[in-house]
């Protein structure tokens, strides 16, 4: 069973439905016991880094997620949920992340040319950077749906795919049992469902 961590940010309806669509057993929960008994964890997130990090920490769920991840349980972060996996985020100040993947979350305005619209929103092509478990069914130039204004910087070692938007932006990361997608697989049609399926079926 996959547990979607419900810490009070964003709307989890589509995400939950996308797992139903691939036949995976899923539950949306804020209960630590359920997180402990789950086979895999999914960390969603919409909104601002600091606010989300605070909520995750206030609910005590941050500690639980980190403990489970360190014990080897597969964890997939999506969008802001991926960003929270990193050491820190620079959105409205500097905030601590979960520190599960080295790197930091910086504004994309620092690396893309002026004139390009922010957020980076819409369908963009993936460039696979290295072999991975998460993107095993994905090919170069498969399109996925992005909405973000910040990106994961200084994490080349764990970047498994990038998307070109005036700069090569981190699109997906993988470090042992920790996975992340900057884009929304639950809104990325067939390609997105394949990624969720790979996560659901992988043995770690």
């Amino acid at each position, binding site marked *: 069973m996959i547990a979607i961590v419900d810490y009070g940010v964003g709307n989890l*309806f589509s995400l939950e439905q996308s797992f139903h669509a691939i036949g995976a057993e899923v539950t949306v929960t804020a209960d630590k016991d359920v997180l402990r008994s789950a086979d895999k964890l999914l960390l969603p997130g919409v909104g601002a880094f600091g606010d989300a990090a605070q909520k995750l920490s206030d609910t005590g769920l941050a500690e639980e997620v980190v403990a489970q991840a360190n014990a080897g349980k597969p964890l997939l972060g999506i969008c802001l949920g991926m960003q929270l996996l990193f050491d820190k985020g620079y959105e409205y100040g500097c905030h601590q992340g979960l520190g599960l993947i080295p790197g930091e979350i910086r504004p994309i305005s620092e690396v893309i040319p002026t004139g390009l619209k922010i957020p980076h929103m819409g369908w963009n092509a993936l460039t696979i950077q290295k072999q991975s478990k998460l993107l095993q069914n994905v090919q170069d130039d498969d399109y996925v749906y*992005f909405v973000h204004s910040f990106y994961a910087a200084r994490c080349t070692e764990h970047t498994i795919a990038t998307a070109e938007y005036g700069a090569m932006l981190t699109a997906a990361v993988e470090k042992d049992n920790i996975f992340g997608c900057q884009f929304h697989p639950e809104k990325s049609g067939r390609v997105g469902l394949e990624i969720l399926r790979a996560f659901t079926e992988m043995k770690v």
Partner: protein
Amino acid sequence: MITKRIIPCLDVKDGRVVKGINFQGLNDVSSPVSLAEYYSGAGADELVFYDITASAEGRGLFTEILRQTAKSVFIPLTVGGGINSLADFDRVLKCGADKVSVNSGAIRNPDLVYEAAKRYGNQCVVLSADVKRVDGVFRVFAKGGRENTGMEAIDWIRRCVDNGAGEVVVNSIDTDGVRGGFDLQMLRAVCDAVSVPVIASGGAGCIEDFIKLFNELPGVDAGLAASIFHFGQVKIQDLKKEMAKQGIPARI
């Protein structure tokens, strides 16, 4: 490179798609769920559901079909029509909408865009503006294009973007339904005024109209249309192939 988006729009009344839709191979041509699945498979980049119901009962049906659609369609869904309050945002977001488009609701309550953007994020709030030339000036119209608000359109759009609208749908009443092409002059004026994504609506009659739109106005991010897709005059796959051939980024 980010692609230009192609967006079919479905008008829904009492839970059913209105405007005759002429598709082969669909069992129920007025079922929003079947149509959404069809368009998702046909390469639509996003879907807009527009609720034209007036009654509370119809609104409930709309919310239910939205929920059904979000169970089987995994591309972005935008919902508009009858959005007048944060409670309306909440109602449709809980049922699977990703973005909410406001039109008359924002005209009646100028704080709505700001409040919604603050609560749900700018990316969630789409301003939809019905614009028509009156004595050579772009004016904003309300109530489905029936009522001239007297407001200058570019100024109105800029104000809403400053208040947090993350995207703008520009529907030209002048070109809507004519099928003579998008309103490039109006769209250019909007692109020059704002830096958020701009979605062109009103006037598409054929594939070339989209090609011309994206070639002449690189600032436009998406093209939206209804009946030409519903009646099959333009097939989304053909449109996207032609875009790719002309060097316009498209998701195929």
